[in-house]
């Protein structure tokens, strides 16, 4: 009986520490999941005279990938998108975040452009409205233009198969 209290304290402390093992403070839940994709009107990297808005998300399941040429892990992730975009015929929209237009164009020309459209967000305005805080970030937006999922950090094929692909497939078939 006299060991009951220390045991309880130990279990409580142990429980918190155990949970702490797999809590990633870098993963902040997006406040925007379940909300319509915020408005923007920005030029594209491919054609700086062409402006697009969030209307491009309508009617199809969009994968929105935020990247920049100064972002090292985006460069690593790029190869994954090159592969996935073709294999799954994705409506993959890029957002070039806080970047230089020339450098972005050169980069896409040099290593290939996996994006159907790549939005040029020089001032980080779209990034701010979408709650972007670390590139690369990936959003999945459904046919009605509602954000369904957000991932911070690189996508690898394992995560793609376990989470993104099933979600995209269910959004394609369903509502």
């Amino acid at each position, binding site marked *: 009986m006299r060991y009951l*209290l220390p045991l309880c304290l130990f279990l409580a402390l142990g429980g918190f520490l155990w949970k702490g093992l797999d809590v990633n*403070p*870098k993963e*902040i*839940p*997006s*406040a*925007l999941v379940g909300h319509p994709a915020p408005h923007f009107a920005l030029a594209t990297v491919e054609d700086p005279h062409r402006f697009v808005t969030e209307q491009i998300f309508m009617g199809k399941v969009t994968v929105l990938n935020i990247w920049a040429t100064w972002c090292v892990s985006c460069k690593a992730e790029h190869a994954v998108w090159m592969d996935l975009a073709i294999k799954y015929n994705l409506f993959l929209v890029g957002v070039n975040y*806080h970047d230089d237009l020339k450098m972005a164009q050169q980069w896409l020309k040099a290593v290939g452009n996996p994006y159907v459209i790549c939005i040029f967000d020089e*001032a*980080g305005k779209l*990034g*701010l*409205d*979408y*709650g*972007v*805080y*670390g590139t690369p970030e990936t959003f999945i937006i459904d046919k009605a233009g509602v954000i369904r999922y957000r991932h911070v950090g690189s996508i690898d094929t394992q995560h793609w198969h376990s989470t993104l692909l099933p979600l995209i497939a269910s959004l394609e078939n369903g509502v």
Partner: protein
Amino acid sequence: MAHDIYPFSDPKQRDLFTKVIHELRCSVCQNQNLSDSMAPLAVDLRNEIYQKVKSDYSESEIVEFVTHRYGAFVLYNPPLQWNTAFLWFGPVLILAIGLFLFGKYLKKNKLAAF
């Protein structure tokens, strides 16, 4: 420090700006607030908040603007919600347990008159 880069003619607006950027957390460098952080995102948010203060937005409107995008996570002064209940009541709970044990200890040692 921030006052030179963000000039205000109205001292009330300056106070509001200073208060808000001290109470909001930078999501990139999570142990800094928007006032301290030099992360590009913090700079963007400071500029945005500066414009909003200048345009006479209220404190709650500005906080709403930021939490709508970055969630309640960015609040250094967290609201009372189910998932912050332990944060708010935990210390009281622990104090109560401490007092209870202290009381028991006193009784056991016949110092209850104290």
